[in-house]
């Protein structure tokens, strides 16, 4: 009867319509590349606190440098450096309490280190030994998640459980720009919005997902605006500005803890190194781009600010670096002193108990 009745498009101007809703995305920056801060936004931190922040970033970087060196010597396996992302990691980690539940991707060693997770265990994990993931009881840090974005759901679930139990706990998930393309990102964000859960999502938008630049990942101008699709707040933060990251995270955690629901924080930063030690970033991005970001180094700009404030000079910088190096030396020694894993360990934690087939296989080892 109706054979694809096509009614031709009428020649009228673009449709006028009624405005239903409008949305804004904002950006937070406090510390600029020259080391100047916006006093109106600057958190009231003591000199000691600022030095703690600085030393945490330095520890993170020292770990990262050492891990790269160990990998080259064949003492670690494939390793994903986080050079350049120290502000995003340390700034957010410092906003947490030990009661909070943390869901890292694979590149958040700076978060672990800032909270006091043993560096030796981090090395152990990257050397291919899962015992490095046996989180000490004082933390609630989930194992590194290699399958991009899939851990976002676990954070949402933990937040749901915390609310059910009426615990004042916030769940925090870290992930990259690439993760925003995954279905689980969406499903997790949607659940968090619907149930208004105490969860904070921190995207380290380091602008690359291996060789895919941000514009190959999304058609949006910001990642923060993706929160509009879920009915909660998204904010973009200068991810190389530890004060801004810290402030945004503190606010988001406080909001979550007081029942205000989830927040999405996009930390705009840059992956200064290769994706992993198995990658060669020079195949897909220009040295100029990298050089421009070197100028925006999060540690450099903090040093500039601290120098202005009389909190930093070269002597202190060197002394602090020496201390961090000693800490990391010690961690490497501790890691290498660990007994190697034995085959029977494979059987230990698949389930709480071995089934008869597994028991037979263990015997045959």
């Amino acid at each position, binding site marked *: 009867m109706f054979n694809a009745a096509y009614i031709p498009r009428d020649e009228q101007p673009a449709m006028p319509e009624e405005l239903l809703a409008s949305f804004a995305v904002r950006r937070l920056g406090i510390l600029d590349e020259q080391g100047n801060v916006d006093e109106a936004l600057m958190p009231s931190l003591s000199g000691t606190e600022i030095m703690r922040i600085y030393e945490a970033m330095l520890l993170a970087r020292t770990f990262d440098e050492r891990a790269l060196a160990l990998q080259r010597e064949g003492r670690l396996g494939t390793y994903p450096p986080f050079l350049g992302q120290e502000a995003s990691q340390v700034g957010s980690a410092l906003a947490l309490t030990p009661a909070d*539940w943390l*869901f890292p991707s694979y590149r958040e060693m700076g978060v672990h280190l800032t909270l006091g997770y043993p560096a030796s265990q981090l090395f152990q994990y990257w050397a291919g030994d*899962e*015992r490095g*993931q*046996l*989180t000490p*009881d004082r933390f609630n840090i*989930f*194992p590194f998640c290699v*399958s991009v974005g*899939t*851990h*976002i*759901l*676990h*954070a*949402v*679930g*933990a*937040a*749901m*459980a*915390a609310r*059910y*139990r009426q615990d004042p706990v916030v*769940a925090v998930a870290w992930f990259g720009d690439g993760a925003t393309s995954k*279905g*689980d990102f969406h*499903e*997790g964000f*949607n*659940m968090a919005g*619907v149930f208004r859960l105490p969860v904070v999502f921190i995207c380290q938008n380091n602008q690359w997902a291996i060789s895919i630049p941000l514009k190959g990942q999304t058609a949006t101008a910001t990642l923060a605006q993706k929160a509009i699709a879920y009915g909660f707040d998204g904010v973009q933060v200068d991810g190389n500005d530890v004060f801004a990251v810290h402030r945004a995270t503190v606010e988001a955690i406080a909001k979550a803890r007081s029942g205000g629901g989830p927040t999405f924080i996009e930390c705009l930063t840059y992956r200064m190194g290769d994706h992993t030690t198995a990658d060669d970033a020079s195949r897909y991005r220009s040295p100029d781009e990298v050089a421009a970001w070197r100028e925006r180094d999060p540690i450099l700009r903090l040093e500039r600010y601290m120098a202005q404030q009389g909190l930093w000079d070269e002597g202190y910088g060197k002394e602090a670096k020496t201390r961090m190096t000693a800490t990391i030396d010690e961690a490497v020694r501790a890691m290498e002193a660990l007994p190697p894993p034995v085959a029977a360990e494979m059987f*230990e*934690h*698949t*389930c*709480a108990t071995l*089934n*008869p*087939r*597994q028991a037979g296989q263990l015997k045959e080892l």
Partner: protein
Amino acid sequence: MAQLNMVQAINLALRQEMERDGRIVILGEDVGRDGGVFRVTEGLQECFGAERVIDTPLSESALVGMAIGMAAYGLRPVAEIQFMGFIYAAFDQLFTHAARLRSRSRGRFTCPLLVRTPYGAGIKAPELHEESSEAFFCHMPGIKVVVPSGPYTAKGLLLSALRDPDPVLFLEPTRLYRLIREEVPEDDYTIPLGQARLACQGKDVTVIAWGSMLERVMKAIGPRGAEVIDLLTLNPCDMETILASVRRTGRAVIVHEAVKSGGFGAEIAATIAGEAILYLRAPVLRVTAPDVTMPLSRLQDSYLPTVEQISRAIDDVMRY
């Protein structure tokens, strides 16, 4: 003791265990106000509130993924996948995470998660509403797969599953939901996971089945001396019971409604071929759906193993 069907038995088990254990939280699509599309969770939201019986968005990966987070936190989530045909979106969360969390964290985090889903064919529902893809989940170390065969086993197995320290996939044969009524005790009783049930003893042939096929097997055996094993748990599978029986009878027929290639019947036959070969007096036969895309309802009777096919396979091995 009341005569209950399987829907009622499962509902009862959930209700009793929720009363006993405040950590149990149910989540899924339409599990709350609507009581589930098969009414398995009927009345539970009224009883335990919307915080414990949670209607979620249409989001299978999130359902399972969130439940993993909840389980790790210390709850005992029960996630309902509305039909097994919609579990594939949650495959990644099940295999990458639920199955591995204990191992990856070296025991620091565990995943006492129960995933329930209506399973199997025979109700002439739309596409994807009658899937029988249990074999996938039997190739996942770390996950248990349980299939009750009637109201009594449903309650006892469900209580075990709800108390298991690790993830359990609980497959509820939809065809049986209202087909059988049995005495189901009000009391707390459990049927241990990983143990098969002898549905009937015999010395001439061992017939192995689970879920709704069991009913057809019982019809098919007739007066022949068949020993029928109702597996109940597929993973881990009670191979010891199977092997002991086959060593006695020398003959084995395996029946399942999934397609043959790569079905769970293969694992059973392979285990027999590896560990009871010297006792075999006949080939190990599998009676299954053919290796084709599952048809819609009008061809379902041609697709599923019939009583006649099962009976013929028994005759075939007996004739050896």
